[in-house]
């Protein structure tokens, strides 16, 4: 499942058949390399965070939950929803100090929420190498880069 495909999808309660909100953001806990919650818009009450554990199914057309009282308000989740922890569009640095691009999309496992890969401008980065998401950059551990034809691998030291 891709981050960009998820945004705007409806979240429906299976007990009442009511749409309880629309997905506005997918919250990734970088230390666990996992999606921990969805931030919803157009909710009835003031709570707008849907913890991953409350999701009944991540379907092709909608996300289903058991009831309409599953939303919470949580300080850590609100922080992850902020601009500093946003992943999309942010530059990516390896721990070796190389900039390898910026994030165009995030691929995650719809069954358990694990981040499978980060899609950069030119590279696909293994999600297990994700280290942190901060206001300056998305940090990743280095990986062997399969460069597209005609592009030099970015992991090799540049000539000085």
């Amino acid at each position: 499942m891709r981050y960009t495909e998820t945004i705007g999808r409806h979240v429906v309660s299976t007990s009442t058949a009511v749409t309880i909100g629309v997905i506005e953001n997918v919250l990734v806990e970088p230390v666990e390399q996992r999606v921990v919650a969805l931030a919803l818009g157009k909710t009835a009450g003031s709570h707008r965070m849907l913890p991953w554990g409350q999701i009944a199914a991540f379907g092709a057309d909608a996300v289903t939950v058991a009831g309409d009282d599953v939303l919470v308000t949580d300080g850590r989740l609100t922080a992850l929803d902020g601009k500093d922890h946003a992943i999309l569009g942010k530059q990516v640095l390896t721990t070796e100090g190389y900039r390898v691009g910026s994030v165009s999309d995030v691929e995650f496992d719809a069954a358990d929420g694990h981040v499978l890969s980060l899609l950069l401008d030119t590279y696909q980065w293994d999600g297990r190498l994700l280290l942190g998401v901060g206001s300056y950059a998305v940090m990743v551990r280095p990986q062997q880069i399969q460069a597209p034809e005609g592009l030099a691998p970015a992991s090799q030291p540049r000539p000085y």
Partner: protein
Amino acid sequence: MSTLLRASELAKLPVVTFAGEAVGQIKDIVYAADGGQVNAFTLAGRGLFAGPLNTAVPWKDVVGLGPDAMVIESEKVVVPTGDVLAPATTSSGGGGNVLRSRVLTDQGTALGVVNDVIIGIAGQGAQADVIGYEIEPAETLGRGRQRLLIPLPDTLAASGENLVVPAAASQYLTDDLARFGSVVDSFRSQLSAPTGAASNNPAQRSAAPTSAAGQ
């Protein structure tokens, strides 16, 4: 030498934690007292009007140093500048200044004035070794005004005024940074096995300066 870096290119590099936060930028490089290694980096705040932070990162806590950032695990490794400065020299101010120091051979010939420091990093977890200087050559060298690279031995005497190098170093002057790593390697292997290969007569060298491995 897998990576060669000019010290001047490191200044202003952002210092970023694993969490993706920039804690500052590199302000200055602190060298060991013998000038042979990088001991630490002092930090400045990021942005146009940010000043020095009076903090530093010891080399042992640097995870990665690349063209786009210096990476540390967390802000916990940042220490007060005083902790790293005591027995060391920096490239500008405090202790002793390497830049603008005069490079003198042990035979008493002035080779030039230090313009930049070349740092070599052999690989992950390795020492950041000062392997050479970029110098503005002294007129007496007869090499014109083009800046030259001079290889250094593992350790050397530095006072903040003069840097004393073995006379043989003047035979390895080059202007090619791409090949400088191998120049340094051959210079150092010659130093460790001095079997009369190098001339010890400074007059002979200044009359006909050569660049044995550089060209």
